[in-house]
């Protein structure tokens, strides 16, 4: 009995290690990616489509976060790193190059009954850090602002907080675990404000203008809508990818992949 338990336990542990590994050895016929958790959806669907087209090649994705992903490429532990921010100058100096795969636009949403139409990025930050607590301070009704956000670790939250520079300072009233929940909650509460991936926002809520620019695919792509961030593919400069990794890279940066990228809720860059 005891032996059995040990065996089962060992088996589970081995399985877990296998799952969390970064596909360390990039043998022929495999593509390993590592990095940003925000890119999980887009890279997952691209990987699936790629595997479906090239049956011999296995695709792996290790959701570790942008920083660890960049490090993994640098140390050669995976083929392509995924980062939801641009590379820093130091990282570029270390011999890494970036290719923008897509742009993630985040819409700031309010209830349709809310008269507020336009907010500046600074005001949004002030609202979320609790400096502005009543809608009347910014031209709305006399009502307390209800801050809706996402759970810690969420890519959208990470994106929103890093763009508005409010990391760890947001005074959330609700932390919800999905984009759908955020939209439904804002829809239900006339005094709520939330943020959600641009592609998920429908007419049930109102996306406010940020610094006078309405969020749309075009404004995200040309950079005039500021609540956005790039999804970046990180590779080593001057070092050729394996055949299968190169195939994957070409595939996801081609226009053929745009439909899949849009479906994952982000704006394709190519």
């Amino acid at each position, binding site marked *: 009995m005891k032996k059995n338990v040990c065996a089962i336990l060992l088996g*589970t542990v081995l399985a877990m290690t296998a799952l969390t590994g970064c596909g360390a050895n990039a043998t022929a016929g495999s593509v390993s990616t590592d990095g940003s958790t925000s890119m999980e959806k887009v890279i997952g669907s691209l990987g699936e489509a790629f595997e479906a087209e090239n049956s011999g090649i296995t695709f792996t994705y290790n959701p570790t976060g942008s920083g660890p992903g960049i490090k993994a490429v640098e140390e050669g532990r995976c083929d392509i790193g995924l980062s939801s921010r641009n590379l820093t100058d130091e990282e570029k100096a270390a011999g890494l190059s970036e290719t923008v795969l897509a742009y993630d636009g985040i819409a700031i949403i309010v209830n349709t009954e809310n008269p507020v139409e336009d907010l500046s990025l600074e005001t949004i930050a002030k609202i979320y850090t609790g400096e502005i607590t009543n809608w009347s301070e910014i031209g709305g009704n006399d009502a307390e602002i209800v801050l809706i956000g996402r*759970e810690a*670790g969420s890519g959208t939250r990470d994106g929103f907080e890093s763009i508005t520079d409010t990391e760890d300072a947001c005074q*959330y*009233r609700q*932390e919800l*675990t999905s984009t759908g929940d955020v939209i439904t*909650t804002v829809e*239900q509460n006339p005094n*709520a404000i939330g943020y959600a991936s641009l592609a998920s926002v429908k007419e049930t809520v109102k996306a406010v203008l940020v610094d006078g620019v309405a969020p749309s695919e075009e404004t995200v792509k040309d950079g005039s809508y500021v609540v956005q961030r790039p999804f970046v593919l990180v590779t080593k400069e001057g070092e050729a990818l394996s055949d299968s990794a190169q195939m994957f890279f070409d595939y996801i940066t081609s226009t053929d992949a745009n439909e899949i990228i849009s479906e994952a809720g982000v704006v394709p860059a190519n």
Partner: protein
Amino acid sequence: MKNKKRLFETIIHGIFLLLGLITVGFVLLITIYLVISGIPAIRTIGLFPFLFGTTWESTAAEPSYGILPFILTSVYGTAGAMVLGVPIGFLTAVYLAKIANPKVKAVMEQAVSMLAGIPSVVYGLVGMLTLVPGIRKLFNVPDGASLFAAIIVLAIMVLPSIIKVSMTALEAVPKEYEDASLALGATPIETYFRVSVPAARSGIAAAVVLGVGRAIGEAMAVMMVSGNVPNMPSLFQSVRFLTTAVASEMSYSSGLQQQALFSIALVLFLFIMLINVILNFFLKGDKEK
């Protein structure tokens, strides 16, 4: 021939034993796994700051992992659900077991069974779309997602366990006890509350403990109505339970944050174990009588 038969018996015995051991094995596996994966974070953070720390900021630049808000929320939430759910459930059980006429009883029992069968995500969804806006308007608070909303949802969710188990206990009271009481001139209501209920008390206590277990372990429904912000609990504030703390951050967690979530699961597991011990105590008391 005889030997063959004995061998056959032994094999069957062995198979049954093996099947039985599967369950035991899973319990052991989960327990061992939780302990092994729950201990490291507690070691790193320290038992005292972990259990009694009042701030939880798992992804901050300088993370802090204090789960006192979650523990208190779970305790308050469960207690609140019991305050609302036990009187309703208990009195319903008395009514169904003793007073109701058979037709009404059949319909109501069916309704209770259906209530038990509704998936928790449906409770959460209905709560999110009706209860949360309702509380906001009724109590004139900025937002209705709160401990109060979670208590109401939990109170409804524990009703079936309380009603069914109490009913079984009440129905098992020997008819002679009640007949004797009635023959002495007590009214039916006096009889039920002075004779039947005391006779069934350990079963009713078991029903309440079972309800506590259900309430403290519920994740999905409370996640949708409680707002999930790790505040110290207060009735109309957004709160996070032990269960939802694990569920809401698990999908993107890594490193110490993930280990700490396992530690929260371990704490929750210990709570449930404690409740099971109490439950066994009541059930055993019932048998000894």
